[in-house]
């Protein structure tokens, strides 16, 4: 079981969260075309490594969190609110 340190609510059990997918997948612009959207929706590396993920804290603050988790050990290295995560990204990636 994961325990996720929500930047708002503190350390909480996994049961309070809903996994919302790969946070490195950036939605293409609306006119990005089928290939870009296909890649956005379906193509995943499934790496054994650190991984950025979206988790929605449905059982707590209901904020969307960007979590850096190791897919092998489940260790969680960093957690931040989506607003902070998105503002830290280069404009092109938003």
């Amino acid at each position, binding site marked *: 079981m994961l325990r996720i340190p929500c930047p708002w609510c503190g350390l909480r059990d996994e049961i309070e969260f809903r996994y919302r997918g790969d946070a490195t997948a950036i939605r293409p612009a609306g006119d990005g075309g089928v290939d870009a959207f296909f890649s956005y929706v379906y193509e995943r590396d499934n790496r054994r490594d650190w991984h950025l993920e979206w988790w929605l804290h449905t059982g*707590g*603050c209901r*904020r969307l969190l960007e979590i850096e988790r190791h897919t092998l050990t489940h260790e969680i290295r960093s957690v931040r609110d989506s607003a902070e995560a998105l503002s830290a990204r280069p404009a092109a990636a938003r």
Partner: protein
Amino acid sequence: MSGPEYPGSPAELPGVRVDECTMGVVEIIARPGRAGELVEIARGRGIELPTFGRIAYSSDRLALCVRPDRWLLLLAPPAPAASGPDRVDWWESAAQAGAAVDQSSAWATLLLAGPRSREVLARGCRLDLDPLLFPVGLAAATIMAQVPVILAAVPSGLLLLTSASTARHFREWLAAAAKPFGLMPQSIISVADLCRSESG
């Protein structure tokens, strides 16, 4: 939790009370980037909107914040005819900064009191309820008995808000969990009762 070890027999168990509160609830939501403005307007009207994870209360109302830039304001119950923003008389001046939504019917409110109430809640609450870590003044949203619950440590005990549709389920679960601790019959109390100190 630093509750006492379990004593030997039911006779030694001090009671736990579960009371039902009737109240009006207004959900106040700040628009993106306008939370500070909203808090100031409210303060000007004598309403303290607390920071995240805390409660603020006066004699007849209690505000709590378990979602960033959102508050639940608990007041005396509304008249059946009332609805919407007219529940908050200062609202007109704040409307640009956010929204106020009547949620009076959305929540059922219970007050759990008694020296062992935190032990009772540990049967379903995954949060650390040590009085040092969750003292009076704190609030949190979590899941208990498989349903969302908002929990606040108020002067009179532990306030529990649960969705109206799951209120009976949650009440039955709480009663079952509290039974070995000597559950006492419930009564109906008001917002003002929440803010008085626990009598024991």
